[in-house]
């Protein structure tokens, strides 16, 4: 299943009209996956409910900061869930670059992103499915289990260098999807 085309719309609706109906649709459609993701990172079911709740409150409050020219709604949601998990469960500070920073060096947004986000996520799914098993495993352990690459190496009993090579090869293959999207 590809990312729902309505996710970006819901976020924009929440930003523009503070629509609770849009918020509820987004909640019902996405929090079951968010909860599953947060539990996969290591949270208990109870803690995951709290992370989901906190993350969704952030979605409501920060919806105006979502910029569809800079990435998909799915990526925005992913980053909010990840950051909420880091602060809530790991109790660590998440350091991030922000555009309001006077030191921020800006660049031009990518106008292609808006029109192709859904199609792009479909292509990305296909590309991820076609990765060799051992390369996909590195990505899954990094993103879904929240393991640093050193831990991936320890778990699989392989050298860190091998893990990094697998990650690099995987990203190289996925890069072709991104390059098709960004005609530069």
């Amino acid at each position, binding site marked *: 299943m*590809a990312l729902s085309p309505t996710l970006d719309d819901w976020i924009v609706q929440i930003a523009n009209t503070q629509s609770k109906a849009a918020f509820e649709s987004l*909640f019902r459609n996405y929090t079951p996956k968010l909860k599953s993701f947060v539990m996969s990172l290591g949270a208990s079911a109870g803690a995951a409910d709290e992370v*989901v709740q906190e993350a969704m409150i952030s979605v409501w409050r920060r919806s105006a900061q979502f910029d569809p020219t800079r990435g998909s709604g799915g990526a925005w*949601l992913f980053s909010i869930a990840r950051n909420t998990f880091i602060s809530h469960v790991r109790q660590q500070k998440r350091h991030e*670059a922000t555009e309001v920073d006077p030191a921020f060096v*800006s660049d031009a947004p990518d106008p292609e992103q808006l029109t192709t986000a859904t199609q792009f996520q479909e292509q990305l799914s296909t590309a991820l499915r076609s990765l060799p098993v051992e390369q996909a495993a590195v990505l899954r352990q990094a*993103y879904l289990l929240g393991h640093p*690459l050193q831990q991936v190496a320890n778990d699989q009993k392989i050298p860190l260098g091998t893990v990094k090579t697998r990650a690099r090869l995987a990203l190289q293959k996925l890069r072709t999807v991104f390059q098709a999207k960004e005609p530069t």
Partner: protein
Amino acid sequence: MIQNLPRHHLPQDLLLEYAAGTTKATTSLLVACHLTLCPHCRREVSRLEEIGANLLEHQPDAEIADSVLARTLAALDTPASMAPVRASVANAHSSLMPLPLLDALAEKQAKLQRVLPGVRSAVLPLAKDLPPARLVLFQPGIRIPSHGHQSPEFVLVLDGLLEEEEQQFRRGDVAFSDTGKIHTQMIGAEGPCLALIVNEGPITPQTLWGKVLKRLVGL
């Protein structure tokens, strides 16, 4: 306005860990500071977050009780608590520092202090099990003696020039030294060099002067 863009970027595997949320606290501060100055690496992180989104999208559905939705809806109309007011750490160099660094300095009440002739340093202990990150101000022309690393080292240049093996590192550039590397670095003669330095583990100085620098500056 034409801004000079960084030419020395972060390793891709580190950006992957940052996007996945698994970087160590000190490294994560350095990544955030580099990203503030580097559109190239920000685009890379955006791509990596799209991959994360895709993997998230294929997660099975967990069960969510209706009470979670009810609690969340009830919380929406409560105004957000005010962000803590940032204590000022204004100094002559503040304008050169990305916000994540200013925040960390304010939180730890860390100030640049003279540690050696020509070297001032502010220590940022961000996690108990990690060597602290350090903001270091070098006077021009200082030579950082030969030393080795038992773990990766990242030096993010915020001002001035750092030279190493014919390579030049200026504002926004990251000089990355992987485990096992032995190197000598040189501060450019044109002006002071301000840099954020992160070591993920102990380093092994090769000289007595190096031992002094290691203890005081973390290089």
